């Protein structure tokens, strides 16, 4: 059985252990945690008393107050909810790219493991969805420590390959995630931007908070290739192009900028956080920087 330390170096754990994941909005939950709920209910932390009105449940009457004052008061608690997070991990072939040791998928699984560890550590519930052309695996969110192992095992078993239809998959996923929470999408988001944004809007309409951790390889950003090169598609078998990359670099980078710009603007419009990572930077540092940023908001 895989262990969390297979994915996380001790130094990584140290750098993120003092951080806490705080969901931007208030998410409903069953368990108490660090996340405050705007709902006044009947949970752990007392907030105030109010006078009983007909229709209130009798079981919520504070009988001690009744003994002292002979009046019916209802105890109200400020409910503390936990974060119900679902990590949505891209298993498409393009995630398997990586010329310099670490593939984007390996990097993504480590990020996912980091997040899982943090969330479980603060008793938030974490789930996992893996997908390519369709949802491959869905592990509902749990907050138990033992659940972390389930997640880690699943991360280890995942093998990227094949095509992806990210928009369609996300649309299909919306009904399954019927309780709103934080969706952490770890993907390179390669695909049709407008379809993707529609799918994300669909998530948002279901009141999900969305955090996208977009994984890049440095090659995809720099396009540093020299000499005649045959580019074989990692997603579509047989798709290949033989070309002199130096002649296309400029156009490629321009196309890349457009792609990223559309994505950034779309995410901003839907109030989605889009955070890019490259596989050559320390992922734990990048994750910590992001969490700090989240906390300050």
């Amino acid at each position: 059985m895989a262990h969390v330390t297979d994915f996380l170096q001790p130094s990584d754990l140290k750098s993120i252990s003092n951080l806490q994941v705080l969901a931007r909005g208030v998410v409903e939950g069953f368990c108490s945690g660090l996340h405050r709920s705007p709902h006044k209910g009947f949970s752990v932390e007392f907030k105030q008393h109010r006078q009983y009105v007909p229709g209130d449940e009798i079981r919520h009457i504070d009988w001690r107050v009744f003994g002292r004052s002979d009046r019916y008061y209802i105890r109200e608690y400020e409910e503390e909810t936990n974060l119900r997070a679902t990590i949505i991990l891209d298993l498409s072939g393009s995630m398997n790219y990586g010329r310099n040791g670490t593939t984007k998928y390996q990097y993504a699984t480590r990020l996912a493991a980091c997040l899982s560890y943090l969330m479980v550590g603060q008793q938030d519930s974490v789930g996992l969805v893996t997908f390519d052309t369709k949802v491959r695996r869905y592990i509902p969110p749990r907050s138990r420590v033992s659940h972390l192992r389930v997640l880690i095992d699943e991360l280890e078993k995942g093998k990227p390959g094949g095509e992806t239809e990210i928009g369609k998959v996300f649309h299909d996923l919306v009904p399954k995630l019927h309780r709103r929470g934080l969706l952490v999408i770890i993907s390179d988001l390669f695909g049709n931007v407008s379809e993707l944004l529609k799918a994300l809007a669909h998530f948002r309409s279901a009141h999900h908070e969305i955090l996208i951790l977009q994984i890049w390889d440095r090659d995809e950003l720099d396009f540093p290739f020299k000499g005649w090169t045959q580019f074989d598609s990692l997603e579509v078998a047989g798709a290949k192009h033989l070309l002199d990359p130096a002649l296309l670099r400029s156009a490629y980078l321009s196309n890349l900028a457009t792609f990223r710009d559309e994505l950034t603007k779309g995410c901003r419009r839907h109030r989605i956080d889009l955070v890019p990572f490259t596989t050559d930077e320390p992922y734990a540092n990048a994750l910590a920087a992001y969490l700090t940023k989240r906390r300050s908001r």
Partner: protein
Amino acid sequence: MPLPISLLNGALIVGAAAFAIPIIIHLFHKSRFQVVKWGAMHLLETVIRVNQRRIKLEQLILLLVRAALPALLALMMARPIWIGAQKLLGNAKTSTIVLLDNSYSMQASRAGQSNFSIARDEAGRVINNLQRGSEVQVVLMGEGGSTLEDAPTYDTARVAQEIGKLDAGFGAAEVPPALDFAAGIFNQMHESTRNVVVLTDFQRVSFEATEDALLGKKIEQLKKMAVAPSITFFDVGQDVRDNVAVDSLEFSKLMVGVGQKIQIRSNLRNYGDASYPDLRVYFRVDGKEKSVSQVSLQPHATAQVLFSQAFDTPGSHVVEVFADADPLKADNSYLASIPVRDKVPVILVNGDPSTEPLKGATDFAEIALQPFSAGKVEMADLISTKVIKPEDVNAKALSGAAVVILGNVRRLDDGQLHALEDFVKHGGGLLVFPGNRVDPAWYNGAFFGDSKGLLPLAIGELAGDPKENGPTTSITTEHFENAALDLFNDPRNGGFSDVAIKLWFKLKPAAAGNAAGAATAPVILAHLDSGDPFLVEKPYGDGRVIACSTALDAEWSNFPMRPAYLPLLQRLTVYLASNVYPPRNLDVGRPIVAFLPAASAGKKAAIVTPEGLSVEAPIVKRGERGVVEYAKTQRPGLYTLTAPGEPRIDYVVNASRRESDLARLSPQEIADFAKTHGVTVVHSGNEYRQIDQTQRYGREFWKPILWLLLILCFLELFLQQLFARSRGARPLPV
């Protein structure tokens, strides 16, 4: 329609095939690609879809530029010339060769102006009118041609100035070799517009039928050059006919000794229509006038004037016959260098010595060659003899000898034969007489050497009858052509009728196959009545060999006791010794060569030219002697060579008399010449300038190609950067 472009270095255009190198490199790189498994294909495919045509176009442009670079380089090195823009490039620089007839016939003058002064002035004008930046060379046509400058030059002003200093009188002009010479010079010239201007007097002897065919051939060769020059003949001749020439000198003796009287017969010819009733002819010896004779010379007639002279001192002497006739002085005198000998050293190799008088093989010959000494007469013999044994023959013994006579020598060893060959090769004379002791196997082997050796003919079987009263043969009385025997053409000088030869070898040529390899064929000088050769001559190297078919002594014939024996042997010996080597009477352009002792090597000899200039020539060691060579003998006249510690040597350079006939081609013949050979003939400077303007065409354009090449080099770099945009395109930040 022919291409308007030609190439000077046509072979280098093959290098243009290097245009394939960039294409091969392109294909090579394309075939050795790296494979990248790529994820962001959706980003790349959009780019490829949009840019595919543009990229192909860019690659094609780059490939074309790169392929053009080596092709242009090869084209540039092949030195292309544009010959299609006739008349458009009238200001083109030219490569011009002026062929100036400086033969002595050009000295012919009319009204105080010689043909050469006209030619010289017109040549100067032609050169001065050349487009600025043109290059020029002047070929002086006297005797095949020599150049005014060491190499073609762009300094036309200097050339024009130097032409002004030129003088005529340099031998006879031969137009075909001069054109040949010009064709060679064009290889050193650079401009694509090329002209040959021949300034000549159209003397009939230079353009008559026999010359015309060769001339036509040379003109065609010029026209077939990669860059055909325009050929213009500039007629600078005037109709001057009067000319008297001393055509030749004839000497009564083959060789002159000290105190011996020699008769000199000069042949004069009047080529013109004028009559000279009392033409004064001067005879000079060593520059001093010795006698004057008057002769009447009718139009187109010849005359002979006889002078006699005895020289008091041995050594080099110069005689000159001068006819004081017309203004064309070059052929009015004829000079000859005469080496006057004190003694003619002759080596007699006695192959059959005897203690009895007149029984040795060379005893009779020794007396015949030194009759005054033998007869105890108070007169000096010209020939001095030395008798040696066959075993004493070696290079040292032969050194200093003029003639070697082998008498009944059995055989020589290889070293001796080599020394003898070397002796003859360097101008010595050899007389060979057989006898009863000769070894026919050696004579027909190493000595004859299949017609390549010294012996003129092989020795066949022995003919005749040795018995006392047996049949004999004699020497046939005939007309002898050879100078050694022509004495006997006059019956007053005796004959061979009383000569009875009992035994003789039949001299036979080599087998046909072997004879073909012989350098020169032997000549039979005299026959026997039996039909067999008596005397056979063969040139060998710079010397000569004469072989006799019978013995030198009285064993096989009575010849030594007959009156003809002495003059024949004397004449044969003097004839062989008269071969002055190196020659001292030369044609114009032939080099002066002097052999000096080896000790002189490293020193310098002084040569005084006909103009009175003193030039120094180095003495170089060659083999066992010092050698002086001086080649600038274009000017006829006397050249005097003095080496340190050596007696003076006189060399005389005489021009051929073929130019003495000043008759010119008629105007119609000149027009026919121009038409036949497709050349332009002009008769005045103005006419030349008008035609010159219409003939200029063509321009070498390697420089524009070089510029294009450089521009393409930069363009290639620029396009590469532009198309790749690798520097301008910065990666996006994460």
